[in-house]
């Protein structure tokens, strides 16, 4: 597996963001704060890193008078995440852990 990707996803917040976006079509910044249990500042930094790596795409728009940030996984992000999942399986620990992500690959 790509060392850079491994390093990128070693951070739990980034792993949470990418795992969540892998399972949905898109998610708001607010929802990502909720699921990752991170602070606004921290999540902004981690989203930026994922975006710079080309794994996610960020779209900003306005709804009424309020800004809305939507994040979506890119095809590169999907492929990389699948590689990451396969590498986890190759360690053989999925036999002992309660995992159900195998069907998603």
């Amino acid at each position, binding site marked *: 597996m790509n060392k850079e990707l491994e390093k990128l996803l070693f951070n739990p917040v980034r792993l949470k963001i990418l*795992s*969540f976006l892998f399972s949905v*079509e898109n998610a708001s910044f*607010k929802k990502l704060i909720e699921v990752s249990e991170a602070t606004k500042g921290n999540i902004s930094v981690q989203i930026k890193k994922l975006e710079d790596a080309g794994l996610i795409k960020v779209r900003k728009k306005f709804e009424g008078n309020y800004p809305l940030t939507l994040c979506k996984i890119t095809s590169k992000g999907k492929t990389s995440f699948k590689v990451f999942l396969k590498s*986890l399986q190759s360690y053989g*620990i999925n036999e002992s852990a309660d*995992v159900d*992500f195998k069907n998603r690959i």
Partner: protein
Amino acid sequence: MNKVDQIKVINDMINEARTNLKPLSFNLVFWGIFINIMSIIHYTFPSFIQQTNYSAGIYWIFLPMIGMIYMTRWNIKKYKEMGYSTTLGRVIKIVWAVFGLGWLMISGLAFYQGINPVPDILFLLGLVSVLTGAIIKFKPIILGGIFLLIFVLSLYIYPGQNALIVNIIGITLGLLIPGILLNRMKTNE
């Protein structure tokens, strides 16, 4: 963070991302009650609803349109509150949007040609219910859709039946009861 922790995080996130089916259940219950109330009013006061050639058509087109506008706004609000969308959620939205369009077209054409739209609408609703139930793997909705198709068949075989009564029974079995059962379900898909 070791590999086991990473797997746990991934699993937790996949579980968080499941499609919330509660809004769908509210939609089914809303339309079940709405159409039943409309049918009961029409059945109880036929002379009032059918006082002119156009009044019944207007009643059955404009009131559902108001319902559609209300539900569309409600669904948009719910989606914003949820903060994420899934492929399954999008498929359900498309299926019911196509049904809404079909409903308006059938009602409009029936109004224009002066024919009863109930069998055609129930047929379309039956198909969409079976489709929705199959997509979300929820048997009561599939069964509800099959009931609706049976009622449509009965309307064609025995045309003398009161379409409003058939409508009330069909909507109760096809929308209202499956919607309540879906709402009571503890887990989401």
